[in-house]
């Protein structure tokens, strides 16, 4: 681990050159090169390696998240859903949503909003006829979600399997579907969804620009793109502590808890490789989104990017 001190300047320079290279010779070269953590690989190799990483960590994914982030990832995901502020009737597409964390939070949020709405309605109707009362009871039974739906899409079968098991275990059944699909080429029609979220998934996508374009395509006009992802810490002291923790502690945790040092080494490296807040904002704008903005959580350890299809 000591030998993997990240020379960020050198590597980002290199990755920049690599990206330009990939862009220009796309279609000509047989194997465009990209990065896997701090290694250089071809795009196909990268997709395979990442698939294997998540295949092997799937069962311990949630446990590892809790131990690596000391449970704070739950707060980050709560903040994401709060920012979304979904109203009943919203259609959500959660990409790379494997184990369902965002989907379950969405369902809980919409349920409570719906309950509040129904309470308000009843409060205002002082003089209900018997007809109206019986209708409101029927509505309660059938529409606890108010037509909201969430589709969880992931490229990895193992992650989806874990997600489905979790859903069954926690009792989520209504308004939830699981689809196997690639973020770079989504199996959905245009203009389908109100909100597209991708939480801690986009840095594992090999062609981020394609994923952003797909996001734009499947969103309805007025729809919202939300991305929760590890990002760049500006504060130098914090950045040093964070690097120390990432490279010294996390792979060790990975070995001890999941028996897989390499996957968590990849995780930490992939975080360093992901573009910083402003650069990612520019990429989102390039895909056609408007009013693109970001919010740092924990001083930039994590950032939520938001954009609208206008």
């Amino acid at each position: 681990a000591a030998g993997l001190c990240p020379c960020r300047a050198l590597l980002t320079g290199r990755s920049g050159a690599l990206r330009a290279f990939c862009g220009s010779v796309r279609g000509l070269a047989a194997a465009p090169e990209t990065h896997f953590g701090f290694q250089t690989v071809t795009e196909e190799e990268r997709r395979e390696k990442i698939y294997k990483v998540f295949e092997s960590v799937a069962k311990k994914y949630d446990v590892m998240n809790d131990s690596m982030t000391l449970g704070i990832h739950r707060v980050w995901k709560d903040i994401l859903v709060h920012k979304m502020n979904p109203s009943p009737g919203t259609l959500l597409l959660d990409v790379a949503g494997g184990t369902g964390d965002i989907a379950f939070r969405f369902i809980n949020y919409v349920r409570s909003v719906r309950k509040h709405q129904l309470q308000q309605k009843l409060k205002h109707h002082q003089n209900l006829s018997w007809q109206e009362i019986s209708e409101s009871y029927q509505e309660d039974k059938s529409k606890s979600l108010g037509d909201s739906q969430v589709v969880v899409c992931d490229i990895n079968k193992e992650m989806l399997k874990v997600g489905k098991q979790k859903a069954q275990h926690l009792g989520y059944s209504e308004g939830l579907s699981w689809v196997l699909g690639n973020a770079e080429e989504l199996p959905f029609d245009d203009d389908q969804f109100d909100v597209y979220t991708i939480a801690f998934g986009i840095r594992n996508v090999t062609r981020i620009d394609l994923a952003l374009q797909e996001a734009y395509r499947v969103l309805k006009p007025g729809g919202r793109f939300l991305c929760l992802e590890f990002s760049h810490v500006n504060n130098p002291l914090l950045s040093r502590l964070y690097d120390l923790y990432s490279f010294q502690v996390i792979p060790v945790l990975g070995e001890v808890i999941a028996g897989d040092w390499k996957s968590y080494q990849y995780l930490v490296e992939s975080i360093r490789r992901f573009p910083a807040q402003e650069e990612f904002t520019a990429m989102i704008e390039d895909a056609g989104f408007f009013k693109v903005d970001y919010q740092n959580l924990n001083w930039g350890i994590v950032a939520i990017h938001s954009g609208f299809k206008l």
Partner: protein
Amino acid sequence: VRCQLFPPQRPLQASAVLRRVSDEQKEPLASSSQQQFDSHPADHHPEQEPQGPRPSYTGQGGQESEDYESEEQLQHRILTAALEFVPEHGWTAEAIAEGAKTLGLSVAAAGMFHSDGSELVLHFVSHCNTKLAELLEKEQKLVQLGEAEKKPTEQFLRDAVEARLRMLIPYIEKWPQALSILLLPHNIPSSLSLLTSMIDDIWHYAGDQSTDFNWYTRRAVLTGIYNTSELVMMQDSSPDFEDTWRFLENRVADAMNMGNAANQVQSTGEAVVQGLMGAAVTVS
């Protein structure tokens, strides 16, 4: 400042919604009151079909200012559409979401605004102020053309405040909520500035040209009259708000009398001082 129009360099797709904004604005330029207060005329079409790549300046600044204008226009349209749903949902993100739906947008578009409904209230207040200014402008033109009599100040103030307060009538049920939103700390700068500019407009059209301390007194007094009348209107249940208009009449009359009283007090004060001086001279 006119900004230059360049097609944004979107590689594969042009904007999905904003083009429609510019298309629709081509048609009803004349009558609708929405257009009158949209400050940007419809010739700012952001998304005409790009005729091949324009070679010149497409820096982020130019692109953003062009997009920023049309984003604002769209936001105004959404807020205007949302007003229709305020009586039912109140001044909330839900009303904005319903408004977005009527424009063919996803409900997620309400995410562009604060979740406390602030922008909706401020938009409405600004809209009412603009309508009031236009009304007063029209009346002034009629007076200038000799087609109407110039009203005495008291009458003018009463009519202007009544006209402005009447704009609240469709939303009167939810207006207390709006007032509380306007008083939120982060909204106070905007709401205060809207209030003062409205009062300023009224005095301007009333013909006030004072350049001394009177300027401040007049505005403070009228602000007080307006605010108290608004509060009385909140809990007025008389037919067509008669009680409110009577209250307003009395307050404006008080204010006029106060002006006279101030003058009287001053002259009395001067007389008293002169008397005392005379007495002092006589005694010494």
